[in-house]
């Protein structure tokens, strides 16, 4: 009796082991079979197709040179990366075309940077964004950029300091000197009430001597209704960031009235609040900017230990911020009519009824919105010395 039972158990046991091997739908992928993409760029071809370029990490050191040669990139050499491109009618089409060109499975899990070419940005970024937000593989926390010229050209750069373009751009965005926009934030902006978005603008700094060409963030691309409508330079970008409450680090240099030389202030913290107000047909926003700054350099002969001088500096600082903000406002309201500061949400939150009635006319209202600026800068510390040790006359 026991022997038959024993046999049954053994048979059942081995049968159940088979199921482990028979599982057909198995998403196991070895690292060796992955084409690890670290950056992707989108361009438009001349026949209006979407061209997808990807930066692929070469895991095989010996195979690198051959593949690098095939990519035809001007970066060339024995780089660790290659750039491959494929064109398609849609994003998904382009991705599958790209897959056909690669021996390994396209792996989006470590893609940290998406770059839109200028031409594509002007035609509309919504199509790639639709794919990136829908497809589970792509990371929503990846950074997005708009490049001057072709995105592919940016990908092919081989910068000196970091491993690749993606790393350079990501670190630059992370340092918060410019805008830091991820796929998720871009999608939120595009789907938001304001219907306008900002994306950092990337340019290529050409090779100089031994230094290789490297990308850098220089201003902002303004997107409205999914299409790029213009760009702002570095100076105005700071204004946008003040208004969007995104300033994390800044060094502001001001020249107090009646003195020679400059005082530089380092930002400790800042906070911006948008207070909307509707009075009949008159829509207005009060922007309250509060910042705390430390003085890090003083080339004037002012003794900063005296409170009246620091107060003077605070006024100067306020004026500087206001100038930047006003410039950004003028451009956004008058030239581009793009609500990149998300006034729309501020109005909606405070005046939902009025907003719902007026939301179709927002494009008409926005340029007319009156913006009042209230800056409240504070100089908290003047540094380790009061008066400059060396008098200006002595210099």
């Amino acid at each position: 009796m026991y022997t038959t039972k024993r046999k049954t158990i053994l048979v059942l046991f081995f049968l159940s082991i088979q199921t482990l091997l028979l599982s057909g739908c198995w998403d196991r992928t070895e690292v060796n079979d992955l084409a690890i993409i670290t950056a992707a760029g989108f361009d438009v071809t001349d026949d209006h197709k979407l061209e997808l370029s990807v930066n692929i990490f070469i895991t095989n050191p010996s195979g690198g040179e051959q593949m690098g040669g095939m990519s035809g990139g001007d970066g060339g050499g024995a780089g660790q990366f290659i750039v491959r491109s494929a064109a398609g009618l849609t994003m998904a089409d382009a991705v599958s075309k790209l897959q056909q060109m690669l021996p390994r499975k396209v792996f989006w899990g470590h893609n940290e940077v998406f770059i839109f070419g200028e031409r594509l940005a002007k035609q509309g970024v919504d199509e790639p964004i639709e794919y990136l937000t829908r497809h589970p593989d792509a990371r929503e926390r990846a950074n997005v950029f708009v490049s001057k010229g072709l995105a592919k050209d940016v990908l092919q750069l081989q910068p000196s300091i970091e491993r690749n373009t993606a790393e350079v751009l990501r670190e630059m965005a992370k340092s918060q000197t410019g805008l830091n926009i991820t796929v998720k934030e871009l999608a939120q902006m595009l789907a938001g009430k304001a219907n306008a978005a900002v994306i950092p603008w990337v340019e290529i700094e050409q090779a100089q001597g031994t230094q290789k060409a490297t990308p850098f963030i220089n201003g902002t691309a303004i997107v409205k209704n999914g299409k790029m409508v213009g760009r702002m330079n570095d100076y105005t970008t700071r204004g946008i960031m003040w208004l969007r409450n995104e300033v994390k680090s800044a060094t502001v240099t001001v020249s107090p009235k009646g003195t020679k030389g400059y005082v530089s202030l380092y930002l400790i913290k800042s906070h911006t609040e948008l207070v909307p107000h509707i009075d009949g047909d008159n829509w207005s926003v009060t922007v309250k900017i509060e910042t705390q700054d430390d003085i890090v350099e003083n080339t004037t002969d002012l003794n900063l230990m005296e409170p009246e001088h620091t107060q003077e500096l605070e006024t100067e600082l306020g004026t500087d911020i206001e100038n930047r903000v006003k410039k950004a406002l003028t451009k956004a309201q008058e030239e581009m009519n793009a609500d990149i500061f998300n006034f729309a949400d501020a109005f909606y939150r405070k005046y939902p009824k009025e907003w719902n009635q007026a939301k179709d006319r927002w494009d008409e209202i926005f340029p007319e919105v009156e913006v009042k600026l209230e800056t409240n800068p504070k100089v908290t510390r003047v540094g380790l010395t009061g008066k400059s040790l060396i008098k200006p006359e002595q210099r």
Partner: protein
Amino acid sequence: MGNWKKSLKHLLRSDRRKLVNAELPGKNQQTETLLSGYVNENLQIIQSIYADCSDVIFHDFLIGNKTKAVLIYIDGLTNVEEVDQHVLAPLQQNFTLEHTLPNIRKKIAVSSIKHVRTVADVIEEISSGNPVLLMNQENQGLSIGLSRWEKRGIEEPVAESVLRGPREGFIETLRTNTSLLRRKLKSPNLKIKSMNIGTYTRTPIAIAYIEGIADPALIEEMTSRLQRIEIDGVLADAYIEELIEDDPYSPFPQLLSTERPDVASAYLLEGHVVVLVDGAPSVLIAPVTFISFMQSPADYYERYFVGTAIRWLRFLFFAISLLAPSLYVAVLTFHQEMIPTSLLLTVAKSREQVPFPALVEALLMETMFEALREAGARLPKQIGSAVSIVGALVIGQASITSGIASAPMVMVVAITGIASFMVPRFTVGISVRLLRFPMMFLAGFLGFLGLILGIIMILIHLLNLRSFGVPYTSPLAPMKGRDMKDVLIRAPYWALNTRPGLSGESNKYRQAPGQQPGPTKRDEEG
């Protein structure tokens, strides 16, 4: 599940049934016989029992040149010099008293003398090394407590060494071991009950507990479980452990085996029961919890915060030893997006030349490590170090350069190996090392899903497990706030006011409260 378990039980027990029904050897009619008043008659029976036993000595002599007597003992188990001096000498020379047993008893200068009445008793006493004296005209014999055999000295426990704290360890002799306990716990409340287990070995076994602290139900349960055992021989404490544990199919030990009298005494003071087995240099402690296996004697001999920190480290490395290779396999085959980009790029580069999937690679290296460990453990110390050098350095390095394994995998295996030795109890360490393999398969087939499934299965099993009625995961689940002071932290002694509640609630307080030390306050002085 239930059916499966039942069938498996039948599978394992089918042989046992036959043995139970078979006649147990060693028990025959002869041994139950009472001793008769004729020494020759008795001698004949005993000699027939001890036929072909060349080490049993039958020494005939005359008491006071008149009464025939015989001294039976096993050579090597008895102190022959003392027998000659204190037994034979006074009986053979100038024995003037009447030749009766009480008179003889008076003459023998030995403190431990017992009367024996049956042949079975005689055999029992002879086997334990006590010489037995039989004489004419007496239907009783005398067992003289002069046993002495070769035994090891008390040495430092090998498997549980500490830097600070007692260095003595149990040895193979039961009496010495009980004396080690008695020397630490001098109270008469320390009870040591004895029994013999094993048809052939007749191994002496002692149950030690402290009356008034240990739960009487626990002692009763332990006694009844021990009495259930019918086995031909008990050669070490592991025999007993496997025959009395709650869940014989569990990979986790439900009794703690220790070589240290101080550990055993500490558990006795917390109301546990200690089972001492003759022939084993370690004792068994029950009931125990999972946490018991995470506590090392060193925790209690170092400063308490050091003990606490080391205990946390141990918990961390316990998790590593169970999960590290499977985590690595799961990440590399399913969840490549889970690790930092730079790490993935490095791993990808190092794995480029490796021909096997991560799972196979992990299994290969883990098996290799286990083999190295086993080979090193079974060899003499001098050769063992050579094995570890060849194994760890040469094979590790060569497997990377030859492209069989990647460097990160070798690192993971090495860390796992070290981690498994962090568990202070070898039995748990090795169980965890074995559990690692199914975990690796789960991770290799199902990724994190499999990993979590495995963890959940282990957790469910642990929560189901009991050691002598005490939940294995207590005091964590069921949560017992009072007992937490010696689980995640090792509280200082002045804060360990209450005994753990797992072995009953009697005698709750172990010390006076409020003993936190500090300089004497001035107003208290006067």
